[in-house]
């Protein structure tokens, strides 16, 4: 039966080529635009570390002066060096790491490469285990290295290949800002998108090339990058241990909700201690958010991307209304043909299904064309200047979603016309002939 419906639909679609093409193109444009923007949104809103996004927590404390404080205010988005080092030393979470972004000039041994700047991260030893960063060779440094500001570095695969021609770089010497560091590990390509652990630097960029113990970076005075907020004049060195500035990120790993609430209590009691000692002026004002909560607070998905998605969906809606209207006129126009089929014994149900098959065929064609347009649209997005542009690719779930969207929307668009079409009463249609 279905085969017969399909051939009927094909013949009917062929009869009004212009109308058929118009309906297919309308659906294809709507689907193409929607899928392009939805894919971009899907990329932007992706969970950067799915295995651990609910076990990693971002710490916020409030060391600012009392002046200007209102209950319920959000604490600063970063922590001070004093607090970060104290909380890492306290070891009250399963794992903890403090960190900041930085830049360093690297002078290669090879004479054919000019000195260049590499993006770096100055952090403490547990970051690697905490974020499940895969190593190609060697290992991370130890807590002992943190303590003694060891002259060691972990580098990315790309940097190892650029400097030494291979990933077998462990034990080699790195010239950073005129100082020497020993390479102890090479990590595989690890670039979470968005760059959740530090949203001050490029959010969808290429990631860091160089990892150095935070203590070492301070002894060598490596430059830092990102944002810094001070609540009073910082003096000569705003990165000193006691500087009145927040500029570090502090992440902790807590593998159960109970531990998380215990850690939150610990942060409150830490703040109370600081208040008693006179370092803090404000009552305890702490936040502990997991990765997803932290990304939401920072509105990581740009509002423009959401706006574009809504515009595209609005466009799809107009295309669908357009298709409903055209299908309706088409089916009503065939009342006499339907009347004859009904008089010959076809039930309303079979007519309804037959008309739906025709709508579905338009949807399928629209889906295929829409897929092509979405692919073209994403190609266009990749040539846009946005930072996330290179990431805009159709993956399997989005491919399936494209098909689903096109077929569902065209069948939905076919429902009303098919129902109206099959209402044709056989007697009247036959009489009018």
């Amino acid at each position: 039966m279905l085969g017969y419906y399909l051939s009927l639909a094909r013949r009917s679609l062929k009869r009004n080529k212009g109308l058929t093409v118009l309906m297919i193109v309308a659906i294809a444009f709507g689907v193409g635009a929607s899928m392009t923007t939805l894919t971009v949104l899907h990329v932007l809103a992706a969970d950067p570390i799915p295995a651990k996004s609910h076990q990693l927590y971002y710490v916020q404390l409030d060391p600012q002066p009392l002046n200007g404080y209102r209950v319920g205010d959000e604490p600063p988005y970063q922590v001070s060096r004093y607090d970060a080092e104290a909380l890492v030393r306290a070891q009250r979470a399963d794992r903890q790491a403090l960190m900041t972004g930085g830049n360093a000039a690297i002078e290669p041994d090879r004479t054919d490469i000019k000195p260049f700047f590499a993006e770096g991260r100055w952090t403490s030893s547990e970051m690697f285990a905490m974020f499940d960063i895969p190593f190609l060779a060697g290992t991370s440094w130890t807590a002992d290295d943190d303590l003694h500001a060891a002259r060691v570095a972990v580098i990315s695969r790309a940097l190892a290949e650029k400097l030494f021609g291979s990933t077998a770089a462990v034990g080699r010497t790195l010239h950073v800002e005129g100082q020497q560091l020993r390479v102890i590990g090479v990590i595989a390509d690890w670039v979470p998108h968005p760059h959740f652990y530090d949203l001050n630097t490029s959010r969808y960029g290429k990631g860091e090339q160089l990892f150095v113990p935070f203590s070492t970076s301070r002894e060598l005075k490596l430059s830092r990058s990102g944002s810094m907020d001070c609540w009073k004049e910082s003096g000569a060195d705003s990165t000193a241990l006691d500087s009145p500035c927040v500029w570090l990120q502090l992440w902790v790993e807590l593998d159960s909700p109970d531990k998380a609430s215990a850690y939150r209590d610990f942060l409150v009691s830490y703040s109370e201690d600081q208040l008693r000692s006179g370092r803090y002026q404000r009552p305890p004002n702490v936040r502990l958010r997991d990765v997803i909560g932290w990304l939401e607070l920072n509105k990581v998905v740009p509002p423009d991307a959401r706006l574009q998605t809504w515009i595209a969906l609005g466009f799809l809606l107009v295309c669908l209304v357009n298709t409903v209207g055209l299908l309706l006129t088409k089916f009503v126009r065939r009342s006499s043909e339907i009347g004859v089929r009904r008089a010959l014994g076809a039930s309303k149900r079979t007519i309804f299904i037959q008309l739906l098959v025709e709508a579905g065929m338009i949807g399928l064609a629209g889906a295929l064309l829409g897929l092509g347009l979405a692919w073209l649209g994403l190609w266009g997005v990749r040539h846009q200047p946005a930072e996330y542009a290179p990431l805009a690719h159709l993956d399997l779930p989005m491919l399936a979603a494209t098909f689903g969207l096109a077929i569902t929307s065209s069948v939905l668009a076919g429902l009303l016309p098919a129902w109206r079409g099959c209402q044709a009463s056989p007697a009247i249609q036959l009489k009018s002939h």
Partner: protein
Amino acid sequence: MQVRPIISTLRRHKTAATLIVLEIALTCAIVCNAVFLIGDRAARIARPSGTAEDELGYITLTGIGTKADATALTAQDLAALRAIPGVRQVSSVNMVPFGNSSWNSGISLVKDDPNGVNVAQYMGRDLLETFGTRILAGRGFQPNEYLDFEAAQQGKFDHPSVIVSHALAERLFQGDEAVGKQIYFGDKPAIVVGVMANLMRPNEFGEPEHAFYSVLLPVEIPYTEGGGYLVRADPAQLDTILADAESTLNRIDPARIILHRRTLHDIRREYYAKDRAMAYLLVGVTLALLLITALGIVGLASFWVQQRTRQIGIRRALGATRGHILRYFQLENFILATAGIALGMALAYGLNLLLMAKYAVPRLPGEFLPIGALLLWILGQIAVLGPAIRASTIAPAIATRTV
């Protein structure tokens, strides 16, 4: 021309008529908002930066390791850059408009105000001359007013002079004379010696009107503090002069890395790239929507013409002219479009309220609604013209034949 028969015909085709009205309404709502958003972005992109943009280039560089002699090296660089033929002015500056990286501070008329106005602070010698920013009131800095950056950092910042932008002066003094007044950077007082044209800050900060809250401080800054060299030259020669400048800097100290060498024009282009992309997308969607809607009208009108062939033939046989038939379909389309536009206005307004709440879009000004209405009336008339002309050419003889 009678409207009654048209209405009663449309009543017999309720579903199809409703659908076309709905389509016109949705298109009207989206197009009104899209045209408004396009205008909004275009206005944003067109904002003047308050500088002689076409004449400016910016070179950022950094040393390897710490430079003990940064101030001396900066002076040497500046002298060498000034000596390049064609260079009009050079300054070492901490940041530039559209550069994104920004030095901000809170200022107020009272001491230690936690709710001060956030401003961007430009530092460097002779910046007004290099940027080409005009002084509107008061004066520029005198040569002996400039402080060394290190000294400024260590708090030796007693009663320095400050130049504020026009927008900032308006915000702080609400139309009163700004020159000679005292303001505070936290607990540090400063005297306003001049008001300059609106110099844009390096990035967005809060509300759109905050874009021009900037101050100029009389602080000489070495190139090592995250900024770079600002070069002003003849626009026609700017590219070659910047290339010269780069090789000059490399010659003075090869152990430095040039990070960027760009004209301010290019920095601006890059800064607004996302806004331009959004505006183009909206233009594309608007055109596609109008096209789809027009084709929808053509499809429906053609169908109605075909369905009413016999009826039209009878009217022609009873004495209706071709003009009557043509105008019948034109009026019918006008009625449908008007209904769609009326509904579309309400939808456009609702959509704008939604966008205002969720995406910080400004309120849709009233004049965009008639623009959208006019656009859709014209579109409807153009779309219906073809089918209506076909209808008017139906011969009266059709009426005598059975279909």
